[in-house]
């Protein structure tokens, strides 16, 4: 079957890729990323890549909450919204610059994450998920109705663009390198975070909460930290988004967006670092690739999402790199569920 041959070919490439040194791997990717805007045929493709970069950072942030700590967060976009609105409001009303607002926005989203998290962590599993969904919606409704602050459904327009040493970012091409540095810093931070004591504790929590508690892991604190770190990543890229689009409105922060980011994490492969990056690229570029189908674009997109999950239920990374260690446990589980 052509399918099998195709898959084997991908797996060969993947094996070669996986054997490379991690630094070399990311190095190659960054060289490609730096060359990309010079090769792109139009500003439009650079713009799409910028959008993809925004989603890459968002899904890296969600991956910390979801993939690393194993908490289902359905309202992640709220942090992004808080970051974006912080920039929009502070830059217009107080005239602060991009670089001043960035740390402020990180702090605001962290506080917000702390507030939400400390209330929500009493709940388990799906109840936690629904509460996160609830605060996501509450933030959107507030943005819609606190007209004196957010200008309501009309949104805030004319947000100033960032400058760096007198250089002003204006077109997608110039923004591209700013976005790329956001991505690079997020990837670096995620790596360091995952390898740290906290990261390892979170993985222990994800695999087995009870075992982790009996090993002396403080569940609540570690989960909160993951929540806050994820929130800060989301908030910081929210600042970038507001400065890039120069316009924010509640429409950009719907529940659907949260779910799309979650889909990026899951489709790419949860708990890995390459996964969310790949997932974000796939889900941003797929509708572009389907553009020729015009009206049927989103229809096919939905069908492909179902198809992708059926073909690679462990995400793209799990598909090209089966994890041997977990196999025994999974077989034990699937023994009872396979055929009835």
């Amino acid at each position, binding site marked *: 079957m052509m399918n099998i041959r195709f898959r084997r070919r991908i797996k060969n490439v993947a094996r070669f890729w996986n054997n490379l040194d991690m630094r070399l791997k990311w190095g190659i990717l960054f060289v490609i990323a730096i060359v990309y805007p010079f090769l792109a045929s139009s500003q439009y493709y650079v713009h799409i890549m910028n959008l993809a970069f925004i989603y890459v950072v968002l899904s890296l942030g969600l991956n910390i909450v979801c993939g690393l700590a194993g908490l289902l967060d359905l309202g992640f976009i709220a942090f992004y919204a808080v970051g974006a609105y912080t920039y929009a409001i502070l830059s217009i009303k107080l005239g602060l610059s991009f670089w001043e607002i960035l740390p402020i926005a990180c702090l605001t989203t962290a506080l917000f994450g702390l507030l939400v998290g400390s209330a929500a962590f009493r709940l388990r599993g799906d*109840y936690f*998920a629904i509460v996160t969904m609830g605060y996501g*919606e509450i933030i959107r409704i507030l943005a819609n109705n606190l007209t004196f602050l957010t200008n309501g459904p009309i949104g805030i327009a004319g947000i100033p663009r960032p400058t760096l040493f007198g250089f002003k970012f204006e077109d997608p091409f110039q923004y591209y390198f700013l976005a790329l540095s956001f991505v690079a810093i997020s990837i670096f931070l995620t790596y360091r975070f995952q390898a740290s004591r906290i990261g390892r504790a979170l993985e222990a929590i994800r695999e087995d*909460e009870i075992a982790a508690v009996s090993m002396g892991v403080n569940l609540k604190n570690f989960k909160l930290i993951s929540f806050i770190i994820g929130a800060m990543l989301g908030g910081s890229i929210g600042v970038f988004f507001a400065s890039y689009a120069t316009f924010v409105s509640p429409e950009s922060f719907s*529940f*659907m967006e949260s779910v799309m980011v979650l889909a990026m994490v899951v489709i790419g492969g949860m708990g890995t670092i390459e996964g969310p990056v790949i997932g974000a690229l796939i889900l941003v570029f797929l509708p572009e690739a389907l553009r020729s189908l015009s*009206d049927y674009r989103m*229809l096919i997109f939905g069908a492909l999402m179902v198809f992708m*999950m059926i073909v690679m239920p462990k995400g793209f990374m799990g598909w090209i790199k089966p994890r041997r260690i977990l196999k025994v446990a999974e077989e034990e589980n699937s023994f009872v569920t396979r055929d*009835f």
Partner: protein
Amino acid sequence: MFLQQLVNGVTLGSVYALIALGYTMVYGILELINFAHGEIFMMGSFFGLLFWWILEMTGLSKVIPIPLAIFLMFIFSMIATAFLGALLEFIAYRPLRSVTNRLIPLISALGASIFLQNFAMLTFGSTNRVYPAIFPDVGWNLFHARISLIQIFIFITCILIMAGLTVLVNKTKLGRSMRAVAQDYVTASLMGIRVNRIITITFMIGSSLAAAAGVMYGMYYGVAKFDMGYLAGLKAFTAAVLGGIGNIPGAMLGGFCLGIIESFGAGYISSEYKDMFAFLMLLFILLLRPSGLLGQQVPDKV
């Protein structure tokens, strides 16, 4: 004012409760949040409308008495949507049954929901579709509140459907197998229950309830739109969680509570924030009762 809001809230709550039942039944059996359920509700509404169009085209709409036409609309929409629900389960969920990560079916459901929404947009158009005003516009005034016939109809139909469902789940053989599968499907399959068939039937029942809700919603508000499933689905899911997800009386209670809260919030405080009251109430209740109003606290398995 008070009574009026109560009546509106109960009407809205009945619709939420019917949709919430579909969420909760599927969750009870598969521990899966069926994200596409809101879209099923929307398709149910459109199937009802489609049936009315067929009646109009064939000229039967003038011949058949209105109560019968409404009854047939419900039946047609419920049957068609039941098959749609079964199809959804077969395509998007069944291949993922053995996957241990519960997020995977969730994303598949999301894909299915995007598909259905766009399917509806392409077939029925992206604007509001007017529902036929076949319901006689009569109402009664009661202590300064106006209760219309359609509100009474929605409430009574919901109560009847829920009573029917309660009997089905608690008294029949099918219901017993459903409860058995919900409790432990491995053991249930060892006892000779065809688990796959029960799951399909559960999806069919849940979908047909959503279809009934969809037709009622269409008649009540007079329109159907391709994206109506999104917010209604979200609210109904909230209602299901409010009552304790997986718990059938809980979904009914949650639906009514949510409808009434929303209606009072809109009437007394501000209609702009009405969606927020629903969610704030949810947060508040979950903080007090972490597994919903009627949900049971399940201890962790070691």
